[in-house]
């Protein structure tokens, strides 16, 4: 079992890159602990900016810093960053084109037992609708590292959503082809495609193994970049496999499944199932319990695939 959560991978990667890139700065809103950013703050105190519990100011300040040539990484709970600060994201970051990387920590139902105030299940819908900002959900610590490296090398307005808990590795190491905007095909099946992002990628892969034993061969697409959207990979999957199941730790409205459906329904319609959190305040519990309840775990995804392909 991997013990390194993605937030720790963000901190470790930024610390390494900061040794040679003097423009990297990190901002937090009384969230350095939950963001795993305390080591960065201790090592680079002059490049760590504490804003206090003021998420609007957090994003505005970061935008001002980016406009002055720095590379700010804003680390704050996804639930607040994607709601309380959203006008600053829209105007100061996306519209003004400032290269702020917003790292939404404890995303989705990471804070499962804390209730809807702390869930971020609408963030993808909101961010995706704003022109000029890229949206990412890295699947594991290795992908998180590659993404952070790419964003330091190519600064851009970006929202990166990561979870709180360690997730099982999807990649064996950080040595794999990674490109912003290019989905990663993790299994090449021809019967049906499962499209996942972030913390649902590992369960999607596990579901494909369960189904393989039953003679259903799944293609598994890891859509780490929700925007810009990899149209080609998704259309290819629709054409070649004929069925698509999307799996997201997000409302069934406006997120990954919606993005896929918007494209597929207009260009190459195929039967789809959008697996996600229904339109209700998510049930409290640990991430694992909530995933199992809504069918985001391997068994639930396998069930959704069987049901769709046998209809």
């Amino acid at each position, binding site marked *: 079992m991997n013990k390194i959560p993605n937030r720790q991978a963000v901190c470790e990667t930024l610390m390494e890159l900061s040794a040679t890139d003097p423009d990297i700065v990190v901002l937090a809103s009384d969230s350095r602990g939950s963001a795993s950013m305390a080591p960065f703050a201790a090592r680079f105190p002059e490049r760590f*900016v504490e*804003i206090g519990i003021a998420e*609007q*100011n957090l994003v*505005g300040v970061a*935008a*001002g810093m980016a406009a002055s*040539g*720095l590379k700010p990484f804003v680390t704050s709970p996804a639930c607040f960053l994607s709601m309380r600060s959203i006008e600053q994201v829209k105007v*100061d970051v996306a519209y003004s084109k400032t290269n702020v990387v917003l790292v939404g920590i404890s995303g989705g139902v990471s804070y499962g037992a804390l209730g809807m105030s702390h869930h971020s299940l609408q963030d993808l819908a909101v961010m995706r609708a704003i022109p000029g900002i890229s949206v990412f959900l890295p699947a594991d610590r290795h992908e998180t590292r590659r993404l952070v490296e790419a964003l330091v090398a190519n600064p851009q307005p970006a929202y990166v959503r990561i979870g709180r808990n360690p997730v099982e590795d999807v990649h064996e190491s950080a040595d794999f082809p990674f490109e912003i905007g290019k989905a990663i095909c993790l299994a090449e099946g021809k019967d049906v495609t499962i499209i996942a992002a972030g913390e649902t990628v590992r369960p999607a892969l596990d579901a494909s193994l369960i189904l393989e034993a039953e003679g259903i061969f799944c293609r598994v697409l890891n859509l780490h970049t929700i925007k810009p959207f990899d149209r080609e990979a998704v259309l290819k999957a629709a054409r070649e496999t004929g069925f698509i199941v999307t799996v997201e730790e997000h409302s069934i409205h406006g997120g990954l499944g919606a993005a896929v459906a918007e494209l597929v329904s207009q260009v190459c319609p195929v039967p789809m199932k959008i697996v996600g959190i229904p339109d209700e305040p998510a049930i409290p519990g640990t991430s694992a319990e909530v995933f199992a309840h809504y069918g985001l775990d391997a068994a639930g995804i396998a069930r959704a695939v069987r049901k769709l392909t046998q209809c």
Partner: protein
Amino acid sequence: MGIQSEQNLKMKANQIRRDLLHMVHHAKTGHTGGSLSSADILTTLFYDVMHHDPVNPDWPARDRFILSKGHSVEGYWNILADMGYFPKTQLETFSKFGSPIIGHPNNKVPGVEMNTGALGHGLSISVGMAIAAKMKKEDWRVFTLMGDGEQAEGSVWEAAMAAAHYKLDNLVGIIDRNGLQISGSTEDVMALEPMDEKWHAFGWHVVKVDGLGTDG
């Protein structure tokens, strides 16, 4: 600083007021009141106080200006054009279809640092710029113009706290105390006084000047 005679600045501010009235009349749209009340402030900043170079708008050492009350853009556009940031003929496209010279600051236009228009954002941006200047050990300054009605936005006070916390002596926040906002007097809509004491309590050095005049 202070190289312009008061008389010159007064004449310039009057010219800007005339030009912006012409602009709003011609386009049949605009926020006249806040533009008229800020004409002297903007004139003094751009023609006298700030270090900037219209020929080289991205000059790294320039002082930064953020129009937090972004709706008061008409005077700003006229000043930028008058100083040569873009051709004066472009002013005629104000608010026209597809024009970059819109009803709020637009950073696609040379001389404009950031897009504003949603009130309560400018001071945060300016705090970020002032922190960046300090981090980079550069000595340019940041000037922000806010409205008095805008003071009701909570984010203004988030930024005010942060500016004091980080001891940003390279940041100047200006409030156009014209006493009015859309629905009437600021004191009727949401009482603001004692405004100076509020800012003082937030850790700022407060100076009151006559904003309708150039000798403040």
